[in-house]
């Protein structure tokens, strides 16, 4: 099937091609909702059954880093939508600028996520043989990034949780499995999204996107917003709800 300009041979018109492409992306996003839905269900169910362990786990996450990351990601959604707008009105330089900003914000998010992950490794909060939710409480010197008053608070919460759930260690591991599973999948989607943005950047630098034809910017934008929305759900699920109850 040969291609005439931007029109692929199986289509009759550019409108039909654009309609197909965006419908395809919307359907793909539906499959993504179902994909994340499965693991969110597993999380919600276990959170209901092992509430003390999950609250204790939630309390060890850094609210500060999580909030900053939420802001970063929302900002990247804004720059993405600006890139889509720039493509629609044909401001070619602006497309490149906004794409670069989106990529930059995406990498800031991933960088902060990396910091959070390495803290979890240092604090022995990764499920497995070395898992020890009391590690920081018992070895404050190994956790210099946690303030002493936070540690006091954490120690109290952990003792309460341990009293409520004698098998706190294994149930807290379920929390961290879900944490790493969900944020890991989300980060994987961010990395794929960044790859797509670089592909757009290449097209944008070649001046390919015009008000008549900008479908790739449009549908990558849809994907990027979806990945942001996943985080909008993950942030309260993992960091916020009933943190200190």
């Amino acid at each position, binding site marked *: *099937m040969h291609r005439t300009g931007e029109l692929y*041979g*199986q*289509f*009759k018109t550019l409108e*039909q091609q654009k*309609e*197909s492409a965006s*419908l*395809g992306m919307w*359907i*793909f996003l*539906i*499959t*993504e909702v*179902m*994909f*994340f*839905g*499965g*693991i969110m*269900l*597993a999380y919600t*169910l*276990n959170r209901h*059954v*092992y509430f003390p362990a999950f609250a204790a786990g939630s309390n060890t996450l850094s609210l500060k880093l999580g909030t900053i990351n939420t802001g970063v990601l929302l900002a990247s959604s804004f720059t993405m939508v600006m890139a889509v707008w720039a493509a629609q009105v044909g401001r070619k330089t602006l497309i490149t600028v906004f794409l670069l900003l989106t990529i930059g914000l995406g990498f800031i998010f991933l960088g902060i996520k990396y910091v959070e992950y390495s803290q979890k490794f240092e604090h022995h909060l990764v*499920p*497995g043989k070395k898992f020890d939710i009391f590690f920081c409480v018992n070895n404050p010197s190994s956790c210099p990034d946690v303030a002493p008053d936070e540690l006091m608070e954490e120690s109290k919460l952990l003792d309460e949780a341990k009293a409520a759930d004698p*098998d706190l260690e*294994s*149930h807290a*591991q*379920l929390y961290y*499995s*879900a944490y790493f*599973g969900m944020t890991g999948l989300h980060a994987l989607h961010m990395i794929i999204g960044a790859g797509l943005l670089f592909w757009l950047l290449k097209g944008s630098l070649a001046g390919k996107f015009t008000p008549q034809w900008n479908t790739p910017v449009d549908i990558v934008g849809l994907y990027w917003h979806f990945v942001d929305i996943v985080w909008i759900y993950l942030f309260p699920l993992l960091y916020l709800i009933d943190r200190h109850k």
Partner: protein
Amino acid sequence: MSTTAATPAKTLPEHHYLNATYGIRSWLLTVDHKRIALLYLISVTFFFFIGGFFAMMIRLHLLTPSGYLLSADTYNRMFTMHGVAMIFFFLIPSIPAVLGNFFIPLMIGAKDLAFPKINLLSWYIYVVGALFTLYSMISGGLDTGWTFYTPLSTVYSNSAVAPAVIGVFITGFSSILTGLNFLVTIHTMRAPGMTWFRLPLFVWAHYATSIVMILGTPVVAITLALAGMERLFGLGFFNPAMGGDPILFQHLFWFYSHPAVYIMILPAMGVISELIPTFARKQLFGYHFVAAASLAIAVIGFLVWAHHMFVTGQSTYAALAFSFLTFLVAIPSAVKVFNWAATLYGGSISFDTPMLYAFGFLGLFLIGGLTGLFLGCLGTDIHIHDTYFVVAHFHYIMVGGAIMGYLGGLHFWWPKMTGRMYPEWLARIAALILFVGFNLTFFPQFLLGYLGMPRRYHVYPPEFQVYNVMSTAGASILAIGYLMPMIYLTWAAFYGKVAGDNPWPATGLEWKTPSPPPTENFPVTPIVTWEAYDFHNRPDLGLDPVSTHEIMPAHGDD
């Protein structure tokens, strides 16, 4: 078939999709939906015979009560790999990826699917998943049952679970991409005049199937991903020893795997909806209802999954609701069967091979469907749960239904796909052998199950032997019935009589282009001015007006 008498010998068109380009690269890098369909045809046939080999091992082993052929452990591997090969690598892709891929664009008057490259990608994903699964099969096999129940699969099994889970996980994405491609194609690629209610019911059935594919498959993907992580890294979601919940696995697994049954049967129903009007030479009775029934089956099918779990200790009230919803699926299924039967009434029926398969489907699907109600009923399910009754039931649906539909469709469209006719009498005999062999294999299993023989056991009490011998004898006949079409269809693709554009004749748009079709499907984009299955207003079919005359019932106006 009556129009062939005095016409000159038919020839194949000079240019068609099979001779457009040559060489291995032109096949492995093709984006033509028709060639990709043939790639799928070869791959699913390969897995069909792998799965069939395992099935023969099972049946031979069960000839004697003590089981003389395999060890208990090997037996477990045989039935597991039979299920995995047949369900994930044959049944789910069979009709959609082969016939659907080939004919949806032709039926709606499009040059190709909306995303030809994604179509090719889906085949490669299938192949990669298949390689992982084959690796699992040759590196010790798999013994968890095709359901991968945890914690057996994640903690206790000593077999090659991880590569099989990875293989099935990967192959799921092939299914998702096929469904996505079909949905978009049906929405945006229809030819002028091809309105939603002029679509052939085959297309409606695939629309419903695609919905199940895109909504269900991602859920089993994440479930298998979690189970795989649990196996490899010791996470605990489904492991009770670590506080996880194995029932959660079953819920998530069946949330996909029950609707997956409809991925297998809905396309077969679509095929039957094409065959019956064609060979009854009569417009399909209740077109809108049959189309809506496909969608209803897809939607209700998502709400019944826990009927696989009646004995897991789930809440009685949940079980009641799921039982009720299970019964609801019978309604749209029955609507279809009644409408097919009503189409036959007063039709001018011919018994060509595809129609024999359609009749086979009607009878076997009826038995398979009605025995499903025994299992959906809470009281009787306690008695026949996990017995051969279940095995017989789902084989009546999946083999008697889905494979009969698949073979009927292959025979019906073989002249379009290859341009050549299969040997009619040989094919009729094969269809008959299949029907007899199938019933001899699986009907005794209903009796065995009702008498209490559990599934998945490698030994059984001696009083069950006579039924097991019957079943094994039937399986041998069935094997011949499957080998025959494989051989003569392959032969016919190269040496069969040239078929012509519309040998039956049938009404669909796919028959208005040469056989085999050119790469771009239609020399000019067709404009559709007729309703689906309308034989009356189609002088181009060359039918004798009398043969399409609607025969009114004698009591028509009393």
